[in-house]
């Protein structure tokens, strides 16, 4: 035989694509979670600020 047959490296290919999609997925999820947490913090801080402002209004 003149040429060697093409090796079966499909397992590595599958592993590569799984890693690529997993890393991208985790990153997008982390961005979503950080965004959600920051919005919750913002709402809490705004309500806290509103409560602090109330007594000064009464005066």
């Amino acid at each position, binding site marked *: 035989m003149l040429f060697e047959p093409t090796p079966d490296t*499909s397992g*590595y290919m599958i*592993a590569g694509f799984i*890693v690529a999609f997993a890393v*991208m997925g985790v990153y997008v999820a982390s*961005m979503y979670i950080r965004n959600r947490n*920051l919005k919750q913090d*913002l709402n809490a*801080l705004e309500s806290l600020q509103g409560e602090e402002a109330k007594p000064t209004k009464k005066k």
Partner: protein
Amino acid sequence: MQPRPLVLKILDIVSVIALGVSTYLALVFAPTELVMGNVQRVFYFHIGTAWVGLLGFLLAALAGVVYLVTKEMKWDRLEVAAVEVSTVFFFITIVLGSIWARPAWNTWWTWDPRLTTAAVTELVYIAYFMLRQGIEDPEKRARFGAVYTLLGGVSAPITFMVIRLFRTIHPVVIGAANANQEKMNMTGDMKIAFFFALFAFTIIFVDLIWHRVRLGGLEEKVEQLKLKVSM
């Protein structure tokens, strides 16, 4: 926080479609490489992520320079976004390269000039976040970050050029290689998959940067409000 602009919503959809098409081109459309077999298909994502990784590090350096000149925090937000997104993509590049190397070079890792500079670049930008975490004053943090990305930005062209300057086993894909280096030849269909991957990852990169800049704006707002409430 302002609602997501229409252009960003469209960009989100285009990014998902581009990633899907690029995956199809890499897995189905492109022919199987005869010497390496199917593992060569990760090359399209390897190059696509490497391109946006290095592009982002240069963008961060540029944003750092503009911040140092203007002192406007929006440039610091862009710098952080560019570094963060690029660090993620460059991590994918390194892992995919390692997975490709196992059947191609019979090893997961070797201290070849390209692999070494890529690993150093990644570590430089991981350290960037450690540096930022350690500084509380936002202006000082932005100033230090800008200088750091300016210095760190040097690692991007070094990583790109190292296979053209030194003897290495890493293939040269873009541009002419010297006689000692292996050049990767592609068929027409492979070139379509290759260039589409570059396009797709550029779109995804812009989309993620935009989202990260918006997140940075929200972080800044929360930080300012926390200071205001605690006073």
